[in-house]
């Protein structure tokens, strides 16, 4: 099975691009809903953090990226992986700890990576990604490749010193870097309105000499537009940008979280704000795509994810010889 989604699209968003955007978001949603179900069934081990509800961010940003570009993700990384083109079957197998997984079962949900796709890994350390992204942006700059690098991080991570340092470094090195603060309102149970001393995370951009923007994270087009500007500026040597994307996560912090700490905001968001619904309404009302086309994607994606799960379950676990390999290139 080859589960790679195309990642390079034109910026004009013709029907093909729109279908791709929708397919990306739909794939992430289906992936996460299915992992949620499978986890509840007891088949998936470890800590799993789902991205459902936040799809427009990964999709809206990554549509601007191509093979020159790199991203770093977080513990909540499935959406970023899919949007950057990581093989979905490999991802699912990884989450099940199978030898066929993206990381041969050695990494798991929190460490899915594919450097060949410029995906530097989900990360178990909050704030782990931004410094790495400065490095990828530096490499692109030194090589003159025109590449950019994107750090996705959460509202909680916006208080981590590693993140704040990286904003300054990217600015003074004038790096082609984009910092995407995904503000879903919580770090575990801790509200971002409490943990972030400013009203908005984007307010911090000024402290590090870069533009900061806030976008409605349920709106694919808003994210896409803001990211497009930031990516274009970065490619042209204009330096970094901080984009704050605001939305709600649909599931608990991790699978198993009872979520006693929040009310009915998820039901509200799913009903009224959902990025997939909104996308559908907009593109169908504008006559850019038809409901049939989108339904077709839904069906296709559902089958695709179902197949990924079936294959992941059937795949072998890594053999004992795998314990000691892959620590060094040579030792």
């Amino acid at each position: 099975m080859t589960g790679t989604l195309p990642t390079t699209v034109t910026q004009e968003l013709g029907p093909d691009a729109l279908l791709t955007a929708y397919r990306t978001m739909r794939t992430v949603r289906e992936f996460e809903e299915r992992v949620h179900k499978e986890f509840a069934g007891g088949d998936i081990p470890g800590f799993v953090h789902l991205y459902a509800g936040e799809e427009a961010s990964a999709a809206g940003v990554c549509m601007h990226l191509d093979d020159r570009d790199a991203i770093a993700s977080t513990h909540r990384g499935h959406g970023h992986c899919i949007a950057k083109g990581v093989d979905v079957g490999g991802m699912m197998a990884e989450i099940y700890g199978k030898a066929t997984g993206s990381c041969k079962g050695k990494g798991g949900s929190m460490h899915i990576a594919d450097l060949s796709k410029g995906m530097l890994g989900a990360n178990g350390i909050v704030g782990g990604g931004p410094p790495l992204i400065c490095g990828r942006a530096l490499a692109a700059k030194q090589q003159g490749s025109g590449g950019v690098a994107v750090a996705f991080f959460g509202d909680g991570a916006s208080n981590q010193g590693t993140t704040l340092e990286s904003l300054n470094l990217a600015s003074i090195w004038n790096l082609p870097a984009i910092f995407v603060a995904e503000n879903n309102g919580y770090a575990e149970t801790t509200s971002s309105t409490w943990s972030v001393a400013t009203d908005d995370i984007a307010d911090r951009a000024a402290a590090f000499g870069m533009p900061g923007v806030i976008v409605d994270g349920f709106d694919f087009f808003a994210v896409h537009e803001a990211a497009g500007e930031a990516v274009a500026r970065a490619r042209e040597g204009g330096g970094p940008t901080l984009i704050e994307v605001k939305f709600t996560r649909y599931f608990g912090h991790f699978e198993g979280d009872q979520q006693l700490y929040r009310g009915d905001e998820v039901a509200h968001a799913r009903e009224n704000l959902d990025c997939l619904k909104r996308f559908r309404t907009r593109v169908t009302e504008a006559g850019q795509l038809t409901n049939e086309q989108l339904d077709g994607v839904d069906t296709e994606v559902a089958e695709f994810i179902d197949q990924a799960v079936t294959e992941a379950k059937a795949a072998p676990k890594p053999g004992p010889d795998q314990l000691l390999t892959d620590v060094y290139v040579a030792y």
Partner: protein
Amino acid sequence: MARSITYREAINEALEQEMERDPRVIVMGEDNAGGEGSPGEMDAWGGVLGVTKGLYGKFPGRVMDTPISESAFIGAAIGAATGGLRPVAELMFIDFMGVCFDQIFNQAAKFRYMFGGKAVTPVVIRTMWGAGLRAAAQHSQSLLPVFTHIPGLKVAAPSNAYDAKGLMISAIRDDDPVIFAEHKLLYDTAAEVPQESYTIPFGEANIVREGSDVTIVAIGRMVGMAAQAADELAGSGIQAEIIDPRTTSPLDTDTILESVENTGRLVVVDESNPRCSLACDIGAMVAQEAFGSLRAPIRMVTGPHTPVPFSDALEDLFIPDAAKIAGAVKKAVDYGG
């Protein structure tokens, strides 16, 4: 009537009793107060695995949430300890030490010495360690050797609920900085734990099982693994003595040396990575101080020189188990004939 509670409950009870006893004790950590006051939450989250749950409501203003800024809040706990409080700060997973180690090893650990004996820093840093939860490379490490290496720190690593309570109470009353390492695979294990407050002194090992053929020194969760191995070995007529140091710094070298003098054989079980590990530390100490008693090579049973793998198929191979421990013991016993 003996009362059995879990390791998690034992730590919680120790915190509660000490907070009750001493108003200077405060608790802080990510999500320790998280969710307080929200619709469905009676108290607060009490940290990611709920160890401090119930304290928020009981001690208003003394259970604090923190942002994800470990340098700032672990440092704040340390600073507060120099200013008359006795903070217990939670570094969620020991693996996260890399974002705040400076405050621990260059600040807290060194104040007293650098300042000519004129500082007192009674801070406890609670943290979860150990493999086995399928939590992969960045949430499963031991790292106890790193903390044990640092002069100025004390390191406790309880292996059961009874010790957890007594060691935590000692840790809070201790005037030096303490790393209190809670093994995440032990949280749900239960033991008889007295309701009343008691302390277990640092630097006093527990002889978990007596035996005359081999000394097994094991740390944290490995104490239980060693006990399984010992049961197995008893079947083959090998009597293993098991020593649980309970604190790795200070280390009760006397008890270990005395045991080796009797048994003539040493196996050290440490789930950490092997290089510069506690297994090396204890093994080398014995090879220097009790060489004359040794009738066989010391043997170290540790994790391999690899990160902790995710897949259960690999993680189970990473962690020392009873079979590996028994194998090492047999090698030691069979040595030379």
